[in-house]
């Protein structure tokens, strides 16, 4: 793209001083933002690695990782399990909702659903934590409604404030986001494919699975991987719903720092979650590459 004020020199003239100043000016405009990224993201990540691998004497060691694994092995597996389960559920829910928005035949129902599903998008994680803390408790609205409609006995009411509550909160908050991406991708598909299949007598569910879904696979992957990485890093939800073991390692990191000032083990835990996130990214690259082939 040519800069308006500094057109490219004609062939054979070489780079004029004008073009050079133009380029420097462009870099100067981007520099502050890049410096912020370097200082506030790259540097802390490097520091994290340094603190996780360095012992008191200043030598390279794995002892912090060993200690972290020793103390928090359950929580680490628990975190991976919860976030994976939540991601899968988010995928299913968003496919269902986006699918209905695209293929639904009752226009009023589609319009209502479209208005309904977006609400959790604008509710921050911290408020979601508080909302679920009251909703899913033993005396929360969920239990009241279940008891009131006769679905369970009053004595059988249980508090969902454990791993199930965390999964519910994650799905509640993130599914609308992935649904939004999916619905957008589905809306931009060519309707001829869908119409052709329907004309041949295919049921809507078939059309969704065989025709719509393969074409929006890329967007679905992006949404799910972004959600996966986001959920790995959330502190508010597990702290408010289930801070006792087994819990997510974000809570353990917070405890390690605020109570024990143990930055070494805390950073070891952080790096472990980074590796898990990298696993998610690797999964995405593998599958998006397969799609290109």
């Amino acid at each position, binding site marked *: 793209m040519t800069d308006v*004020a500094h057109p490219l020199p004609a062939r054979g003239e070489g780079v004029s001083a004008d073009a050079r100043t133009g380029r420097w000016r462009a870099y100067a405009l*981007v520099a502050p933002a890049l410096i912020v990224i370097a200082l506030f993201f790259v540097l802390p990540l490097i520091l994290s690695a340094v603190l996780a691998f360095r012992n008191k004497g200043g030598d390279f060691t794995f002892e912090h990782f060993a200690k972290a694994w020793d103390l928090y092995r359950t929580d680490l597996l628990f975190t991976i399990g919860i976030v994976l389960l939540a991601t899968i559920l988010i995928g299913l829910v968003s496919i269902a909702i986006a699918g209905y928005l695209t293929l639904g035949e009752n226009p009023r129902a589609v319009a209502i659903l479209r208005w309904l599903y977006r*609400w959790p998008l604008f509710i921050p994680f911290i408020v979601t934590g508080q909302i679920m803390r*009251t909703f899913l408790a033993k005396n929360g609205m969920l239990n009241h409604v279940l008891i*009131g409609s006769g679905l369970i006995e009053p004595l059988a009411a249980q508090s969902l404030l454990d791993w199930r509550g965390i999964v519910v909160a994650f799905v509640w908050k993130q599914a609308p986001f992935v649904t939004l991406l999916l619905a*957008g991708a589905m809306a931009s598909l060519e309707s001829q494919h869908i119409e052709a299949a329907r004309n041949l007598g295919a049921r809507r569910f078939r059309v969704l699975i065989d025709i719509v879904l393969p074409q929006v696979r890329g967007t679905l992957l992006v949404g799910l991987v972004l959600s996966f990485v986001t959920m790995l890093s959330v502190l508010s939800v597990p702290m408010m719903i289930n801070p006792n073991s087994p819990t997510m390692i974000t809570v353990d990191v917070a405890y390690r720092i605020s109570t024990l000032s143990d930055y070494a083990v805390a*950073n070891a835990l952080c790096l472990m979650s980074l590796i898990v996130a990298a696993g998610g990214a690797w999964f995405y690259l593998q599958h998006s590459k397969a799609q290109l082939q």
Partner: protein
Amino acid sequence: MNSVRWPNLLGPAIVLGLVAFVIFGPLANLFLWAFAEKWYFPNKIPQEFGFSFWGRVFSPRGGALTSLGLSIWIAILTVIVSLAVAIPAGYALARLKLRWRGLILLAFLLPQAVPNLPVYVNIARVFYELGLNGTILGVVLVHASHGLVLAVWIASAAFASIDVSLEEASRNMGASPWTCFRTVTLPLAAPGLIASAIFVFLESLDEFTGTYFVGVPDVTTLPLLMFNASMGGNYQIASITALLLLIPSIAFMLVVERFLKADVLAGVGR
């Protein structure tokens, strides 16, 4: 089209009812707690309703007004810092020749793709050494560094969507680059820039994890206040502050509803 008979309506109606319960049930629960005086199990709704907790929340000792003011002030500063850095960067990425443009854009994607926890934790550590822990400046810097990422992407898109010929016309009429930017580019990009400002503002207002590590103990934003109240078992105060936090977000949602066209977002990820 066939006439819709009522059995055909029953299925969607039930499903929609369930969806509405799933989405609004938790919110309704919040409302009930915000206006409850006393609520013990097994009562379905509070025994007593009242506003006394609102009084407590907004009293000088309650601290909610201070926290609210602090949160808003920090959010405003965050927007200023983020935009001050993001607008030049967005303009350069959209309009000017940059040899490593792809790499630079990738660098701005990095913070969204990486778990935030190690970043926050170690920033807090560094700030502690520098004496920035527990200060407004420290919290603003943390919020701004995250808001920046979103702001650069939106600003870049906003500038790229302006017709180049309009800028060329103004330059042809003799305007200097700065005048052209000030009178042509900036006003045309204003809607996109305002949208990014609002996003950054909301993200700063609702930010919890970073403030938890960097703001403690002196900077208590509204999310932190809500968190402390909730962990202390005081659900009324927690619910009231949660409602306060929700108001700007929901207001923004209702206003921007018309702009969130689904097919616009189809381009995300490409």
